[in-house]
């Protein structure tokens, strides 16, 4: 009897079939060619529901190979349930190596954070994106937002920033602060905190974004200009941690977690990025992302 090798396993390498992976890679190439532009793609079925990280998984599985080293983070942590399960899933279907160490990883899939540690041109960062359309808050119809992007008709987006300033004295958007990519498209950087937004600018590594539920891919290639939207007199700023410090390391030039204690009143702060925190505790040498906001904080400390 001839053994049927093709159907020996119940799924293809990296779970998604080759044709679909090819389609995703082609769409990614297009996304890299037009920085910040949202490319529609197939968003195939996965063993988890759309909107639970499928966009990120699609991108990771489409680009991963056996020689890759995967790091999976969720809100800065390698150890959350989400990160563990997704990491196990990718490892199971691809046989790739996995790591917690930011420096070792070749592909980093993330939810809502960019690592504190600087990334190199050998690394790719993959974002899980819940809402890829930055204009959705000002325009609910997809055909209209696409038209607005096509014609760079961004007055309404700017107007929401103006209105926020008038109402609250500042632009209140914390996560997912809108950015202008390459002077052309306004892009949602996925719900990363403001702290991470400047790290998208002129980076060494490639940033890929996948929105599974909304079926969109987009990218920020290395050394692309990414600017947060700001007025000439009302400037973008990052979160202020100057009055707090990390409970385990005393460090405060990083994005911090606020932990309420059991009494429900007092709170402690910890460095959010778990691998960065580990390295600080071990007193390892870490090269952090550098941008003008972090530089200003470090200058003030000296």
């Amino acid at each position, binding site marked *: 009897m001839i053994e049927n090798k093709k159907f020996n396993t119940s799924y293809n390498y990296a779970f998604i079939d080759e044709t679909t992976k090819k389609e995703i890679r082609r769409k990614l190439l297009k996304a890299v060619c037009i920085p910040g532009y949202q490319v529609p793609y197939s968003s195939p079925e996965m063993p988890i529901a759309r909107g639970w990280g499928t966009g990120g998984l699609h991108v990771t599985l489409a680009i991963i190979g056996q020689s890759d080293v995967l790091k999976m983070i969720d809100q800065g942590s390698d150890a959350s349930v989400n990160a563990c399960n997704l990491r196990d899933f990718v490892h199971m279907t691809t046989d790739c190596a996995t790591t917690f160490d930011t420096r070792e990883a070749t592909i980093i899939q993330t939810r809502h954070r960019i690592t504190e540690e600087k990334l190199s041109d050998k690394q790719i960062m993959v974002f899980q994106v819940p809402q890829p359309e930055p204009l959705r808050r000002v325009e609910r119809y997809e055909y209209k937002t696409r038209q607005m992007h096509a014609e760079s008709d961004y007055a309404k987006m700017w107007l929401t920033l*103006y209105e926020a300033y*008038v*109402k609250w004295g500042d632009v209140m958007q914390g996560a997912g602060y809108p950015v202008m990519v390459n002077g052309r498209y306004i892009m949602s950087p996925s719900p990363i905190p403001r702290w991470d937004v400047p790290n998208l600018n002129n980076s060494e590594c490639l940033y890929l974004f996948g929105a599974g539920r909304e079926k969109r891919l987009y990218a920020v290639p290395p050394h692309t200009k990414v600017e947060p939207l700001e007025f000439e007199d*009302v400037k973008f700023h990052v979160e202020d941690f100057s009055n707090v410090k990390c409970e385990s390391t005393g460090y405060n030039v990083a994005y911090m977690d606020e932990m309420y204690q059991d009494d429900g009143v007092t709170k402690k702060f910890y460095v959010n990025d778990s691998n960065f925190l580990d390295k600080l505790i071990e007193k390892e040498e870490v090269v952090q992302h550098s941008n003008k906001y972090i530089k200003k904080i470090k200058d003030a400390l000296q």
Partner: protein
Amino acid sequence: MHFNNHNSTHEWVLKVENLTKIYGEHTENTLANTGPSKGTNICPETGSIVACANISFELFPGEVLGIVGESGSGKSTIVKQLFFDLDVTMGSALLRPFKNGEVNIFEESNQKKRFMRNHLMGMVYQNPRDGLNFAFTSGGNIAEKLLMADLFHVGKIRERAAELLDKTEVPVARMDDLPAYFSGGMQQRVQISKAIANNPPLLFLDEVTSGLDVSVQARVLDLIRGLQHELGIAMIVVSHDLSVIRMLTDRTLVLKNGRIVERGLTDQILQDPQHEYTQLLVSSLL
């Protein structure tokens, strides 16, 4: 007054030729089968509706042109086409400040059309809800127009918005209130502020006073007249109300069934109407 210079072809700021809007399928007979002589604008062959047809006119700098006619005569259709709110079926329009008036503005790209809307034109609608975004403050509504013209300085935006609100007699203290909390007359004045925010050379006013009570009407008309004198904007005023036309305009087009039935100096038309429809309009003036 510029209407004395009709012969000079170099003076107009807007030149419209054969502007036509037809809803539905039409044949070559459609235009012949409709119009004031037939008393209808519905084509008997195809059932298509001729909203306006063969509208040609020139508008000169600083001039105020009135368009008058009963409801459904195609008045608003004309300005909505010129403001790119509606697509045109046929016809052309040349705009002097855009490429020196050498191109048909209806054939330009959407991006260019938006540039013209934001920089060269202003529109005041009958219903403030069409011209203003009620989810944004009145200052924000004016800011939108300024942001479209790439002014990204909050301080300067607020300065300009305050200046405009002051000019249109809206209390500057209410700049950061929603227009929904304003009276109808105030909403209309905010809409006018927004329309003139970028100093456009051309302003369209579509039945601006129709929803307002008489005393408020008078103040809004006063305001428009004042702005016209001060800024010298060329305007097209659409109204079914001959007293508005008399008060604001230099020249008037009378529309019936989508066609121009009479045109001339406003005073002349009101004193000595030639077309029977105009005579009817004037005689029914209270």
